[in-house]
């Protein structure tokens, strides 16, 4: 069905498309789950809507409430759209080193933006948001890093959709941020296909993001359960940018930079399958489109060095 009563009802139900050019053989195939086809253009519409609806259902969110959320962009944009349609005020805490488009999009849907220092990245946004929450006890922080509705959105939506479209799936590859996609879709897929590999691609940023991190004050999302994963890769900016450009050049898919990191891990799985001589159907998440990252210059950079330099110091995933 492609007709829905409203925009909010149309979240999810995204296409899964094959990658005939990047797939290494007829037996080892890559499949892209186009989450940029959601209402605000990212996979985050799923958890954002699920968290709002869960909070409404348990009475935490009532008409006129203010929602507060630490976000480096996509979740905030999704929440802003949902909050606008449902009549809530939204305050987002975002690291100052995120792309300019994100601020514009948040304000466009009516959200207020407060910035956290660039050094420390999302960890710092979480810390600042927790501070603001303690000063405003009547505000509702949905807190995507610890909210089970985040996982549930993928357990009920993303996972079943992928399995229905690709019953022969052998690998599921997604980004590791809040961990919601991997925990939710991963858990569902493993229940249905016990032998499946669930692979995390974690963005590895430049020095600035880690610079001031004290090893005793790190951050692991409350939702994270390592037992769901088969393995976990750290993907640096150069590989992420290289794969993002390759996805555009060879398959015509215009994706954001975190998708490049995920594709890098997916291609690694494909190489392993080829070496082992076993068939594989590898599904991975396209988190968002490239629109929000155009101002970084990654897409029209003359070469890989210039593209990598373009996102130095940015939170690109």
């Amino acid at each position, binding site marked *: 069905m492609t007709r829905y009563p409203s925009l909010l009802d149309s979240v999810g139900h995204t296409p899964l498309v094959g990658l005939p050019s990047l797939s290494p053989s007829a037996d080892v195939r890559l499949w892209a789950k186009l989450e940029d086809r959601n209402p605000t253009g*990212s996979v*985050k519409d799923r958890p954002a809507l699920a968290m709002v609806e869960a909070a409404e259902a348990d009475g935490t969110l009532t008409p006129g409430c203010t929602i507060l959320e630490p*976000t*480096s*962009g*996509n*979740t905030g944009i999704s929440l802003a759209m949902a909050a606008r349609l449902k009549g809530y005020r939204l305050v987002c805490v975002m690291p100052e080193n995120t792309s300019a488009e994100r601020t514009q999009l948040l304000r466009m849907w009516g959200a207020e933006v407060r910035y956290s220092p660039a050094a*420390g*990245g*999302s*960890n710092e*946004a*979480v810390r600042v948001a927790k501070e603001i929450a303690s000063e405003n006890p009547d505000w509702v922080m949905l807190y*995507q*890093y610890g909210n089970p509705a985040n996982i549930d959105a993928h357990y009920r939506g993303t996972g079943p959709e992928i399995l229905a479209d690709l019953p022969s799936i052998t690998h599921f590859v997604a*980004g*590791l*941020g*809040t*961990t919601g996609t991997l925990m939710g879709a991963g858990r569902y897929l493993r229940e249905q296909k016990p032998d499946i590999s669930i692979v*995390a691609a*974690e*963005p*590895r*940023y430049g*020095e600035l*993001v*880690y*610079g*001031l*991190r*004290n*090893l*005793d*004050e*790190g*951050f*692991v*999302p409350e939702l994270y359960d*390592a037992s769901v*994963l*088969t*393995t*976990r*890769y*750290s*993907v*640096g900016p150069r590989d992420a940018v290289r794969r993002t450009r390759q996805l555009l050049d060879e398959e015509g898919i215009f994706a*954001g930079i*975190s998708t490049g990191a995920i594709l890098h891990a997916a291609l690694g799985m494909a190489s392993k399958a080829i070496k082992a001589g076993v068939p594989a159907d590898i599904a991975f998440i396209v*988190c*968002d489109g490239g629109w929000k990252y155009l101002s970084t210059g990654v897409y029209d950079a003359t070469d890989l060095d210039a593209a990598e330099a373009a996102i130095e110091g940015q*939170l*690109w*995933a």
Partner: protein
Amino acid sequence: MAVEVSIPTILRTYTGGAKGVEASGATLKAVIDDLEASHPGIAERLLDDAGLRRFVNVYLNDEDVRFLSGLDTEVSDGDSLTILPAVAGGSR
């Protein structure tokens, strides 16, 4: 087995400011012992009684060692080890 170890900013006080150092050993544990011999104090920042500290991530050729064999993970000549603090994810 000589491997290249990438050191996070916060630990470079132990390596004289070096971003990357060479170390050797057949397993991750042996490599950390070797690091400790050349850069005293660094092991205590990486390990506690239970093994790798909770907020320390170590990647062997970009793969998280917790999904390999942890401290017993075998390393080969020319491998690269990356040590990073755990951080919250990005576009979330």
